[in-house]
Every structure is written in structure tokens, then in C-alpha cells.
């Protein structure tokens, strides 16, 4: 069997193993080591296993991941993000679908402290959905809007997926993170626009919230949440100005989150233990999978499959736009079944040589890829964010209702995606003006 054929069969076997409940990290690593053994012999495979995982993990740039996770878990466990929804609600509840709009804004705010979409959906789901249900919002709108707004977590920096993408695609982590800001805000704006238009056309979806809100109350709540914007601006500002690396901004953000929680008297032993536990579980399981992905990239490089595919693409003289359409279909299908990090690690080694051939910007592509992965989080049958919301709401809303509620937002997401593909400047504007 040629090495290209071994590479292709390896990918097939990998999908089978994933379907059979093999932990993603082990499936990636196992297939890769076996694949290298088949191409280069068992001693080469053993050498890969002794050297590569350690070299991959013992890596300075990668340390942005634990630090961002720590910052998010401290902000969450100490209650720093708790009042976001109340604040957004006091300011926005008069709009049509005001509570859903408020939950979207609050999610965007939460996303700026947390690097994970699932964490964003879980946190906002617990706070916002019960409120919307109390005001007799349409259950599909209430649950769908939160499931969808959770996906902002991986676009608005910090984003764990974006850090890993940047490391695997060998681009600047800070620039890649900054590239997510405008697309993240654009996505949020689209969601809000959709909610407002739908609720204006059909007020029954979201009965108006009749409550008198004083300006004093609006101002008071800002006093409660002010540390969060400060934290976010410090982290983003540090990276944007180039004074601090992504890792340093992340560590500084984590320390600031600890200090703010301490100054507010919320830093109990329980908060510290839970924050560390959450951050460690996230770091270890995410980077163990990333390590599997790194081994897969080695295996793919040995097999020559990515280079072969990029030659095929080159010979076919594919139009870049047509290529993007093809990629879209592949990512949407993969996203329906696989975990987002799995998809990313599976496809980066194959995509990067092709992107170089087509002379496409890797940072821009990273934004597009993450947007697809986010869509994968809300499409059936495997839509992790919808499952998370289902876990939060229990029996009061069915999974089908949640997926139906999400459908409308998928339309908004497709519009956003088309804009991001047609106008790469939306993603690349901030990275290019960075120092």
C-alpha cells in the first residue's frame, strides 16, 4: 500500500474509532502512531511517541490555554459574570424580544472573559432562560437564542480554539485572537437583528416586559459589573498594543480576575478550588486532544496525503470561491457529527498546504473555520450547545424545540459567513493595524 493510501485509510479508521466511543485524544494518537509504524517502521513510530508529545506540550505559546481557562473559571466561579444578564436586561428589556437581546449581549460579554462556547451557553442558559420562560417567551426563541449566543465564546477573544488554530497553522496567536473580534461582534449584531425583527413581526413570541426601570437602577448595575469590562480591555489591550504576548496577557488576566474577586470579598477557598479544578480539567483534556492532533499532523506529513491533495487542487485550477463553497459543505457535514476541536485538528494538517497553494490568508481562514465549528455546535444531530441547554432546562423544553429555535439563527449565521468570506477585511482589519 502506498503511503498516501495509508494516510487516507488512517483517516477512515479514525472516524470508525471515534464512532465506537474511543476517547478522541487516544483515537487521534493511536491511529497516528500505528500509521507512522506502517509507513516508516515500528522504531520510527516509537521514536515519534517518545519525542513528539513531550515536545508539543513543553511549549511556551501553548501556555496561553491554561491561563485563559483559569481567567474564565475564576471570573465565573467568583460570580464576576453573574450580573451581566441583569445589567443587559435593565438596559435592553424595552426592545422587542428584549430579554433575548439582553441574553445575547450578556453572552458576548461572557465570551470576552471565557474562551469556550460551551461554558458560555451553560452559564447564560442557567440565568437567562428561566427569566424568558417567566415572561412567557416562545420556548424555541428562549432556548435557541441562548444556545446560539453561546457560540460567540470561540470567536470573541479569548478563544481556546483560536489559540490552538494559530499554533497548528503557525500564525501569530495574538493576531489570530484579534481577528475574531469584529466577526464575533458581527455575529452578535446579526443575532440581535434577527430577534428584534422576528419579535416585531410576531409580538406573541416575546410578550413585552412591563416593568418600570429607573435610570438610577441602570447606573447602579453598571457599578456592579464594571470590573469585567476593565479585565477584558486590559487583556485585549495588552495583546493589541504588542506590549504583552498572548500568554502574558492571559496570565495577567487570570491574576486580575483573582485580585478583583479578592477585592470584592468573593475569593473563598471554595471559589479557588473550583476555579483551579475547572481550569485543570479543561487544560488537560483539551491539550491531550491537541497532542493527538499534533501526532496526526506528523502522520499526515509522513503519508504525503496533504501535499498530494494540494497538487490535485492546484491542477484542477479551482476557483478560490468555489473551493470555499466545497469547504463549507465539508465543514457543515463534519460539524453535524463531530466535536469541534476534533474537526479542527483533523482538517488543519490537510488544509494548510492547500491554503498555501491557493494563496489564502491563514488568519482569515481560521476565522471562517471557527465560524463553521460554531455552527457545528448548534446543528443536529450532535449540537453540543443545544445539549447543554437541554441539560439546563430539564423537561420544560424538548430538544426538538431547541433545535427548531436554533434554525432561524442558522440563517443569520449563513449571512454572517457569506459576509466574512466575501469581505476578508472584516477579519483582517484589526490584525493588520496591530503594532
Amino acid at each position, binding site marked *: 500500500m502506498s503511503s498516501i493510501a495509508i494516510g487516507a485509510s488512517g483517516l477512515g479508521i479514525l472516524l470508525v474509532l471515534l464512532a465506537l466511543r474511543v476517547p478522541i485524544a487516544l483515537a487521534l494518537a493511536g491511529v497516528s502512531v500505528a500509521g507512522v509504524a506502517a509507513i516508516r517502521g515500528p522504531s520510527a513510530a516509537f521514536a515519534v511517541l517518545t519525542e513528539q508529545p*513531550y515536545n508539543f506540550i*513543553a511549549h511556551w505559546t501553548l501556555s496561553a490555554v491554561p491561563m485563559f481557562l483559569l481567567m474564565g473559571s475564576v471570573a465565573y466561579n467568583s460570580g464576576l459574570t453573574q450580573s451581566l444578564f441583569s445589567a443587559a436586561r435593565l438596559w435592553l428589556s424595552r426592545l422587542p424580544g428584549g430579554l433575548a437581546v439582553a441574553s445575547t449581549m450578556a453572552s458576548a460579554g461572557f465570551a470576552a472573559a471565557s474562551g469556550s462556547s460551551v461554558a458560555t451557553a451553560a452559564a447564560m442558559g442557567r440565568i437567562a432562560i428561566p427569566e424568558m420562560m417567566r415572561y412567557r417567551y416562545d420556548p424555541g426563541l428562549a432556548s435557541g437564542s441562548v444556545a446560539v449566543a453561546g457560540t460567540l465564546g470561540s470567536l470573541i477573544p479569548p478563544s481556546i480554539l483560536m489559540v490552538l488554530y494559530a499554533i497548528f497553522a503557525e500564525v501569530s496567536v495574538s493576531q489570530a485572537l484579534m481577528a475574531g473580534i469584529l466577526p464575533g461582534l458581527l455575529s452578535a449584531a446579526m443575532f440581535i437583528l434577527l430577534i428584534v425583527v422576528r419579535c416585531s413581526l410576531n409580538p406573541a413570541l416575546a410578550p413585552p416586559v412591563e416593568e418600570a426601570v429607573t435610570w438610577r437602577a441602570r447606573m447602579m448595575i453598571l457599578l456592579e459589573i464594571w470590573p469585567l469590562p476593565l479585565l477584558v480591555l486590559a487583556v485585549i489591550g495588552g495583546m493589541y498594543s504588542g506590549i504583552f504576548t498572548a500568554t502574558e496577557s492571559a496570565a495577567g488576566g*487570570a491574576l486580575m480576575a483573582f485580585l478583583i474577586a479578592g477585592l470584592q470579598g468573593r475569593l473563598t477557598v471554595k471559589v479557588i478550588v473550583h476555579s*483551579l479544578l475547572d481550569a485543570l480539567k479543561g487544560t*488537560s*483534556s483539551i491539550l491531550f486532544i491537541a497532542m493527538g492532533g499534533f501526532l496526526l499532523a506528523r502522520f499526515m506529513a509522513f503519508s504525503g496525503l496533504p501535499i498530494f491533495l494540494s497538487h490535485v487542487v492546484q491542477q484542477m485550477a479551482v476557483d478560490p470561491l468555489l473551493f470555499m463553497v466545497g469547504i463549507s459543505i465539508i465543514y457543515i457535514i463534519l460539524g453535524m457529527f463531530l466535536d469541534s476541536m476534533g474537526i479542527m485538528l483533523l482538517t488543519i494538517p490537510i488544509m494548510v498546504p492547500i491554503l498555501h497553494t491557493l494563496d489564502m490568508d491563514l488568519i482569515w481562514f481560521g476565522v471562517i473555520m471557527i465560524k463553521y465549528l460554531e455552527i457545528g455546535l448548534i446543528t443536529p444531530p450532535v449540537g453540543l450547545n443545544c445539549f447543554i441547554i437541554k441539560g439546563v432546562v430539564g423537561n420544560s423544553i424538548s430538544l426538538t424545540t431547541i433545535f427548531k429555535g436554533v434554525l432561524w439563527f442558522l440563517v443569520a449565521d449563513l449571512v454572517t459567513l457569506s459576509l466574512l468570506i466575501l469581505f476578508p477585511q472584516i477579519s483582517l482589519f484589526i490584525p493588520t493595524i496591530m503594532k
Partner: protein
Amino acid sequence: MTAIRRLIIYLCNALMAIAAAAMILMMLQICADAAMRTIASSSVPGTLEIVSFYYMVSVVFLPLAYIQLHRGHVIIELFTTGLSVRATACLDGLVYTLAGLAMGYFTFAAFNKAIAMTHLGEFVLGVILVFTWPARWLVVAGTGLMSLVYALSAIEEFTRALGRNTPSDQTLSSEKGH
């Protein structure tokens, strides 16, 4: 069996505590280094090496076993949702057996490397000299314990497949009760 299980749980928690310490130290040292550079154009010597080789290796490899103990490693469940509880347990038992063997092999590879590097006295030379060979043993500790947890998980799943209650069922239900 219960004694072995208790010992494994104890070791998992111990490695988790070391990882937590590494996480805090990593945050403090990176901040101190960045502050020194910005304010005094100086640095905390060896930050890059210590963060990369000690803290990163600790926070990634040491929690692996603890996570598996709580079944926290990500799997895809979609294609096996139709299986009965016992069939799923049987499949998981098989998967964990293979996973235990694979992690055992990984541990063997890491152990070989650790022995070689310890003999060589592996170090990196940046601003200061940092010995890095002890970090190799962190990998051995993390993956070795994870192999043991997989073996334990496999036994528990096979017991469940045979229709009996396992200690982890009891822990899980008592955890839910809290």
C-alpha cells in the same frame, strides 16, 4: 479491589494538587516576568524554560488520570445511543482495555526517555541553566497512573456488563446525593 481503588483515587488527587500548584506558579511567574520586563527591562531568569518544561508538562499530564476517573475525556456518543446499558458497558470495557494498553505503551516510551535523560542529566541553557530531566518523570507519572485508571475502568465496565453494581456506581450516586 476497594483498597486498590482507594489508593488510585488518592494518587489521582495528589497529582491534581501538584498540577494546581503548577497552575498558580505559572500565572505568578509569567506575570512577574512580564512586569519586570516592562518596568525594569529585566526578567525572571529561566521563566520560558520553567513554564514550558515544568508547569506546562504538570498541568497537562498530571490531571489525565483524575479526568478519566471521573470519565471526563471527550468521546462521541451519537453512534452508540441505541445500545443497551450492558452492551455499552461491554464496548466501553473493550475500549478502556485497549486504551489502558495504549497508555501503557506510551508510559513505556516515556519511561525509556526519562531513564536516558536522567543519566544524561538533560538541561537547557537560556539566561540560566535549567535542568529539565525531572520534567520527563512528570510525564511518566501522569501517563502511568492514567493506564492504571483505564485498567480499573475496564474492570468496572465489564462488571457492569455482567449486570453487577460497581464501586464507581456507588460513588456516582453518592456524589449526586450531595
